[in-house]
């Protein structure tokens, strides 16, 4: 079973993604699957270059 077939809620899947740009709706991040925009409302002062843990379009944590 590929990772693409996994359920994000069932598997509690969160992906690590690097911030490449900041925009009005959140941060543009690069994941293994390509670029997407994630909301960063739940974190302080996100910067380009940060590595974020993202789930369902929201960054939940900045990786230590």
């Amino acid at each position, binding site marked *: *079973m590929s990772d693409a*077939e*996994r*359920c*994000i*809620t*069932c*598997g*509690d*899947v*969160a992906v*690590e993604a690097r911030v490449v740009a900041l925009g009005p*709706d959140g941060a543009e991040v690069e994941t*293994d699957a390509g670029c*997407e925009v994630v*909301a960063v*409302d*739940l*974190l302080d002062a996100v910067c380009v270059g940060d*590595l974020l*843990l993202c*789930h*369902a*379009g*929201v960054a*939940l*944590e900045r*990786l*230590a």
Partner: protein
Amino acid sequence: MRFVDEYRDPALAASVAARIAELAPRDRTVKLMEVCGGHTHTIYRHGVQDLLPDTVELVHGPGCPVCVIPMGRVDDAIAIAERPEVIFATFGDMLRVPGGRGSLLEAKARGADVRIVYSPLDTLRLAAEHPDREVVFFAVGFETTAPSTALTLLRARERGLRNLSVFCNHVTVCPPIRTILDAPGLDLDGFIGPGHVSTVIGTRPYDFVAREYGRPLVVSGFEPLDILQSVQMLLAQLAGGRCEIENQYTRVVTAEGNRRAQEVIAQTMELRPSFEWRGLGEIPGSALALRDAFAEFDAERRFELPGALVPDPKACQCGEVLQGAIRPWECKVFGTSCTPERPMGTCMVSSEGACAAYYNYGRLGRGGRAVPA
């Protein structure tokens, strides 16, 4: 990915497994329950159980938020989706889950406008692009996912959207752990605690497991080495007579969790008095509903729902699997009437359900146990 190589290193795994073998009791079996579908997936996919001594048994609990949604709630979702004015947005996870009247996928085949989204935030764009339609989001998941629904509600309010609502089925992870601990006869020795849920809620909410029930819990990451290290930490506690809540997943989990995530959830949602969990019955304070302040976005208030309690099919033993009372292969319909292609119950539908995980990864090599294909 940053951590994968180190956390899948076979040499490291062997070394942790050796330590586990030293710590494991010789005279009795230790039963450790994991309550996260992601952990179930890792355990089966990487054959973690095979690295453990016979006296250490991993038991799968109700950690799949899709698996525990009762059939009646799926029927409610289908009733909303079948309304001609509705665009029904859902995670792909829920598409094939069988209700009493079939699945959302079958409703889609019959003409319902059901669309897969990867984030509830995607529904904001859908609602703005289709002002003549009612966009409804099927919100499922534990506390990991609730913040994304909460942010969607807050943004919908800011943008003055009138055609967006949420059918809220978020569940919380601590009450079912308590239900499991209260169930007679399960004899669990400890828990492998959920990973990303804990990123949101922190580790403090699990204190009751040690304080009230005298069982240790270790919050774990999702790689094979994470699980093995968590098992090692649990066995060290049991061997040393300790009973604590520990955190193995320190790279993203803290004791306090994400305060802002907790705040946005509290701002938009509140605990229901009770909620029915498939296989576990009614559990108090175990699910979220939209607050009155966000009533305009509540699909349960906007649409009339059948609200029927639909009993599981008689042959379905998902409840016993979800409680860890039986293993997937012990279910009478596993692999025969119930397969991933034609699932009877949610443990087989969800790829993270114990039965699907075992069917896909675990059947070859469980002590020569033959399971029909």
